[in-house]
């Protein structure tokens, strides 16, 4: 009744092309933004920030990046954990080498460094396709983790081999280290997530994004109609790695505070990100956020139910978590292979006709 295009007349091209063409969507979007920026920071406490909100926002950034590569450009990558490690270690090196550098610049520079590394590992994609490429990206994962473990320069020769973020402030508020206010860390990550999502959304419907999608749908055909596969594939790798690098830098500096490469950025992280992309929905911005939220909330929920309510031992709960996550992934793929984003789309289509479907 309220959710419909009728009566919402578009009088200019820019209005016709806007991201949310339906008025209720637009209002909803502004309301969510207002809520996220102005209400949540006053309500957030330490538990919510560290268990739910921060990982959600940071993973959402990484998932957008991976979605650009898998969902928009069709190149399956299993090396994102390694690229997150590149972001984390570059931010660590930048923070310790240039103590006066603003954190925003540190994070963005880490993203750029990761983009360079990602482009280098994207080079084989010009020759190799499909699963062969997916396995080839695992080379990046293993090599990078080994590199950060073995070369002491990356962790400043610390005895434990760990990296830990020094204290930094932004506008006088602590943003890293033990004195960080949850609200400040939340706002910092939120600003990055919203800004980067906005850029990604607009990039995917620009010239560049259309080229990516042409490559995804059929690379030979795309080449014939004049898309340069070298530029398209490498730019997808670069942009995707930039996002993943930013997420890695935020994960290490703002969220974790201290990290060890094999534990924080191992294979399981790569798979987690791919799950988020698949469950959220390939090639969808909303899906990226939804997938990240789902995979962050699910373990918290399961743990609360099994350990908190039923009082089971933590190891049984951990095994059950594996069983349930595995089952959910399979069920999701069977019921809705296009993820939460497709469910959302179906719901909106239904809503359009509600309550008079004929």
């Amino acid at each position, binding site marked *: 009744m309220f959710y419909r295009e009728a009566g919402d007349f578009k009088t200019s091209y820019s209005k016709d092309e806007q991201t949310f063409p339906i008025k209720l969507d637009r209002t909803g979007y502004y309301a969510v933004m207002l809520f996220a920026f102005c209400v949540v920071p006053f309500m957030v406490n330490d538990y919510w920030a560290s268990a739910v909100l921060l990982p959600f926002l940071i993973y959402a950034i990484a998932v957008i990046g991976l979605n650009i590569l898998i969902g928009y450009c069709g190149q399956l990558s299993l090396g994102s954990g390694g690229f997150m490690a590149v972001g984390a270690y570059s931010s660590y090196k930048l923070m310790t080498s240039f103590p006066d550098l603003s954190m925003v610049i540190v994070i963005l520079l880490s993203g750029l460094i990761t983009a360079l590394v990602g482009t280098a590992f994207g080079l084989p994609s010009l020759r*190799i396709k499909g699963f062969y490429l997916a396995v080839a990206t695992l080379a990046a994962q293993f090599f990078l983790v080994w590199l950060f473990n073995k070369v002491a320069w990356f962790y400043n020769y610390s005895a434990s081999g760990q990296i830990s973020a020094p204290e930094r402030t932004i506008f006088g508020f602590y943003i890293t280290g033990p004195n960080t206010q949850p609200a400040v860390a939340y706002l910092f990550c939120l600003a990055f997530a919203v800004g980067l999502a906005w850029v990604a959304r607009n990039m995917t419907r620009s010239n560049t994004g259309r080229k990516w999608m042409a490559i995804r749908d059929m690379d030979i055909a795309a080449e014939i109609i004049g898309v340069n596969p070298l530029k398209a594939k490498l730019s997808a790798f670069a942009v995707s790695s930039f996002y993943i690098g930013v997420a890695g830098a935020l994960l290490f500096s703002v969220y974790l505070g201290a990290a060890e490469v094999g534990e924080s950025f191992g294979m399981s992280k790569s798979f987690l990100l791919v799950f988020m992309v698949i469950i959220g929905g390939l090639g969808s911005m909303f899906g990226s956020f939804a997938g990240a939220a789902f995979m962050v909330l699910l373990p918290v929920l399961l743990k609360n139910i099994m350990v908190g309510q039923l009082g089971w031992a933590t190891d049984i709960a951990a095994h059950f978590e594996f069983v349930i996550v595995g089952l959910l992934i399979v069920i999701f793929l069977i019921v809705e292979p296009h993820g939460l984003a497709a469910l959302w789309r179906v719901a909106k289509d239904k809503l359009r006709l509600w309550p008079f479907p004929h």
Partner: protein
Amino acid sequence: MSAGFYFGVEVFLNGLMAGVMYSLVALGFVLIFKASGIFNYAQGVMALFAAMTLVGFQNGQVPFAHLINTIFGTELHHFGWHLPAFVAILMSLGVMILFAYIVERFILKHLVNQEPIILFMATIGLAYFMEGFGDLMWGSEIKKMDVGIPQGGNLWIEESTAFLGGDGFYGFYLDTLDIYATVIAAILVVSLVVFSKYSKTGRALRAVADDHQAALSVGISLRTIWVIVWAIAGFVALVAGIMWGSKSGVQFSLSLIALKALPVLMLGGFTSIPGAIIGGMIIGVGEKMFEFLIGAPFLGGATENWFAYMLALLFLVFRPQGLFGEKIIERV
């Protein structure tokens, strides 16, 4: 000849046998990929699960004992019997065949005609599920596997080759278990090739691998073939699980051998059984020799984790379908 040269040869031989162990896992991948185009990430976890089941049966463990005890407050642990290895292996094989049927019935049937990436993701989900399920069923502690394969170095080879070197060389040290594994892998490959060449089912398998629709139209049941293929892959996983489990104990890291098998597949080609064997040998020898000659002296060691991938990657740049894979022909 200097002792250093003989050590090199020894590393080479050990690499060859490690490679055969990788191929055992890679074989399962190839079988399923050929028959259904599914890249089965769960192969490693299947090996772990098969090994756990075998040990569980052998020691008479009560399945889900920990869980049942937690919910009902009972004190169950063991049935109190000890099965001979052969019976336990047969029972585990039965479980793997049942598993193949369940996978086909509840997962593959519903995912026909989906994109390969969706199927791949489903097998990752399956891998997660089995990992948790296996731990719930048999417990997650490290178990010792004993099916009667002798362990340790092979004295006979060591003594009979000792005359070769001079000072500081006492003959080649080869693990008896690895020699067994090599022989078993050879038998497995030969029997698989014979099976797929000369039996009726084998011909049907090859037909399905060639073209699903054509196979369907001459009356081959795809679903039966898939159950058979997954059962064979389960059998291969059981063999790999026995070998790796006897070598290093049945524990979580067993499932990570799947990651070792991936570069083998890339190198040998996803669709070739001999490719899996030869690729495994190249990878095994390559990573051991690299670690021996360059990795340990110059790079600080532990290069085995990534060298196989880098080697496979370099290789693929020149031959994108792997060593023995079918040539990829693309049409618009």
